[in-house]
């Protein structure tokens, strides 16, 4: 049914085969699991292109050799596994705590031990120090100046120029992966929707698809089409809002307000058509909870078409404005080799010359029939990321109008029996990039759910784009990445 099913079956579990796969493929995720009698395993997911996603599982009976020296993209993943499971990683260049802050006592690993009440500890986080005459440190966050999520940025600057930026995140860490464990499979959708609020529908669909794959459920075509409409609408909302916010960050407030109005138009039409502004509660394992009736579908399509027209014309004029070009062009360049090393995904990858999109590479749901065009730009700067967003929003609008006008007839949900033990995974192209859910279910409950969020993958690339820019451009560069803190911290 889905081409990468074959890849999922193939467990070629030797270190050599993993290294071989990493040489030609792209690292997608690394995560731990706990089996019976506290037996730990470490899993690696690699995107091997045409042969699909490959999974490698190793039992952890001795310290694990780090793959970070050969695949830098694994750095945060291995730190996370180290924090969550206490798995020893040999040869990792930087094993400082990532998820658990100084308030956590040493030796407490929430995914292995029962953590009822953990005593509060104190300590200092050793930031990387840049030494030398005239080097200053600027600390920003976790509470930021605006309506933004919390995270800490530690800049080492020489004058205005940023020499080094260190990220300290996971302030919004909510123990989400642990929360999934022992919760009924159906409830999992609600947790998935709260991982990253502005991408809630992509998260819900990714979770549902993983469950459907585990239990071998076929989603009715009508439900798959409605999901596509929701995912593309979410992408459009994100991109319209981001382009507006980028304008706001360079002091161009008129298009910022205009874009926020276009976004609100779409949110209001969503509320009228499906009863929810952000498509929460629509996706469910087996299909969708709510049908998109033809009157609603056509009013949605009409609103999307109007919004897309207005946005495209606005964006064209914005990009023709000299002051915008001056700020966007050449700011925050992410070089293609860095992007490749850190295995970045989504808009950030496509703006640095990497043609990568789950919808095209590993089509799922209704994308098996509707493959979107893939805008790719090569300069890797703020302008390139803005352009990718602008073009993608227009492509999404075209997809929505095309699908909403001819929704296949039939039921909107298949029945799922959650009782048997099963494992499954699914990848979705969320507005921020590749989003992967891996679930393992036992007796109707979730035994383990791992979320590979695009933000977790892309955050480590931000410092490379910021280095050598003036510190005043940081908000702009950060906005052009627009990564989710909650999605990363989970």
């Amino acid at each position, binding site marked *: 049914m889905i081409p990468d099913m074959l890849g999922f079956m193939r467990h070629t579990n030797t270190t050599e085969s993993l290294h071989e796969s990493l040489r030609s493929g792209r690292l997608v995720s690394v995560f731990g699991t706990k089996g019976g009698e506290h037996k730990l395993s470490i899993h690696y997911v690699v995107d091997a292109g045409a042969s699909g996603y490959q999974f490698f599982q190793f039992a952890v009976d001795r310290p694990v050799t780090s793959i970070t020296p050969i695949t830098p993209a694994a750095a945060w993943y291995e730190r996370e596994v180290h924090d969550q499971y206490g798995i020893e990683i040999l040869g990792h260049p930087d094993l400082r705590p990532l998820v658990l802050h100084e308030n956590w006592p040493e030796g407490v690993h929430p995914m292995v031990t029962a953590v009822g009440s953990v005593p509060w500890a104190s300590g200092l986080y050793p930031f990387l120090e840049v030494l030398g005459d005239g080097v200053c440190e600027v600390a920003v966050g976790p509470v930021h100046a605006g309506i933004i999520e919390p995270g800490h940025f530690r800049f080492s600057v020489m004058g205005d120029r940023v020499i080094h930026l260190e990220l300290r995140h996971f302030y919004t860490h909510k123990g989400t992966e642990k929360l999934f464990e022992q919760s009924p499979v159906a409830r999992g959708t609600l947790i998935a929707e*709260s991982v990253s*609020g502005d991408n809630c529908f992509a998260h819900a669909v990714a979770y549902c698809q993983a469950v459907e794959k585990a239990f071998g459920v076929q989603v009715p075509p009508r439900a798959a089409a409605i999901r596509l409409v929701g995912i593309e609408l979410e992408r459009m909302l994100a991109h319209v809002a981001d382009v507006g916010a980028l304008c706001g960050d360079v002091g161009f407030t008129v298009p910022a307000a205009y874009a926020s109005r276009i976004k609100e138009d779409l949110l209001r039409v969503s509320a009228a058509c499906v009863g929810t502004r952000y498509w929460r509660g629509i996706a469910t394992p087996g299909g969708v909870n709510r049908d998109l009736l033809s009157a609603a579908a056509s009013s949605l399509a009409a609103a999307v078409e109007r919004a897309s027209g207005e946005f495209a014309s*606005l964006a064209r004029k914005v990009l023709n404005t000299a002051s915008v070009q001056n700020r966007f062009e050449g700011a925050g360049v992410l070089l293609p080799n860095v992007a490749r090393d850190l295995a970045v995904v989504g808009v950030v990858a496509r703006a640095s010359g990497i043609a990568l999109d789950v919808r095209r590479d590993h089509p799922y749901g209704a994308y098996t029939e509707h493959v979107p065009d893939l805008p790719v730009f090569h300069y890797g700067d703020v302008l390139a990321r803005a352009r990718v967003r602008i073009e993608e929003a227009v492509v999404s609008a075209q997809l929505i109008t095309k699908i909403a006008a001819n929704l296949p007839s039939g039921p909107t949900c298949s029945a799922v029996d959650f009782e048997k033990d099963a494992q499954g995974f699914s990848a979705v192209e969320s507005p921020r990039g590749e989003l992967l859910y891996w679930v393992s279910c036992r007796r109707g409950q979730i035994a383990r759910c791992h979320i590979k969020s695009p933000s977790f993958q892309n955050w480590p690339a931000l410092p490379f784009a910021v280095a050598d820019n003036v510190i005043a451009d940081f908000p702009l560069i950060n906005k052009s990445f627009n990564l*989710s803190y909650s999605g990363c911290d989970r």
Partner: protein
Amino acid sequence: MIFDVVHQSLQARQRLIPVQALLGDAKGSRLPEVSGRSLNPQLAERAVEVCPTSALTLHHIPGGHVQLRMDYGECIGCGHCAEAAPSAFHVTETFTRCGVTRGGLVRRWDTTTGLEISPEPGCDPAELAREIRSLIGRALNIRQLDAGSCNGCEAEITALTNPYYDLERFGIHFVASPKHADMLLVTGPVTRNMAEAVRQTFEATCAPKVVVAVGACGCSGGIFAGSYAVVGAVDAVLPVDGYIPGCPPTPAMLMTGILEVLRRWKQKMRTGQAEEHRPVRVSSSQLLVKARL
């Protein structure tokens, strides 16, 4: 060119929603309303069974009656109750329990008679609309504080500044520093990693430090209640003056809630009930975290 952008914007139709239509509106919030008349013990039981949080619970009271308790602070608007028992639960389009006390978010029904038990009233949108100028005076400065939210509430709070809602028309501004703020709008469950920063932000805020807990997570911990990485709802750390439920609350609900909190705050001031000294709920010794801010 700059002028082209401005020209296109000027041609656009005005979208501003009049304040009367805004306050009390909850379209798209997915919050449920109970139709007491059609409520019976079976329907109540069915709804309680499917509720993913403990927003809906049953309570046996002496005399053999069973009460249905609806805590909007815990409701994440999943709509399961309305699917399981559509005759007694439906998604509401108006909602007035915004900016009320924590107790004001709770309603109770006798499942046999279907009567609501001593309901606490919500806010009165018409009165708020009439009083809006006197409530705000010249300006209200709000500092939004994310204590660990999923960013759903942030998206809706950002929407308050768009041309539909345009909060600035009332003299309400979002400010960058807690030192400039009259009100903290706190979203999310307070995570372990944010608890100390939340406490310090509150301490940096000037009196009167009006605190509003936003969203299901802010009101009760929501879907994240009980997680190892979460300390609890906002009121586990800070003294809270008003609660705005919803997952996420719509911009109209936020607007209504902010005004209702102000109204109740003014009333407290008038009757001399406002506390002079408002300490944080959790002292630093309890949070032995060396802050690295």
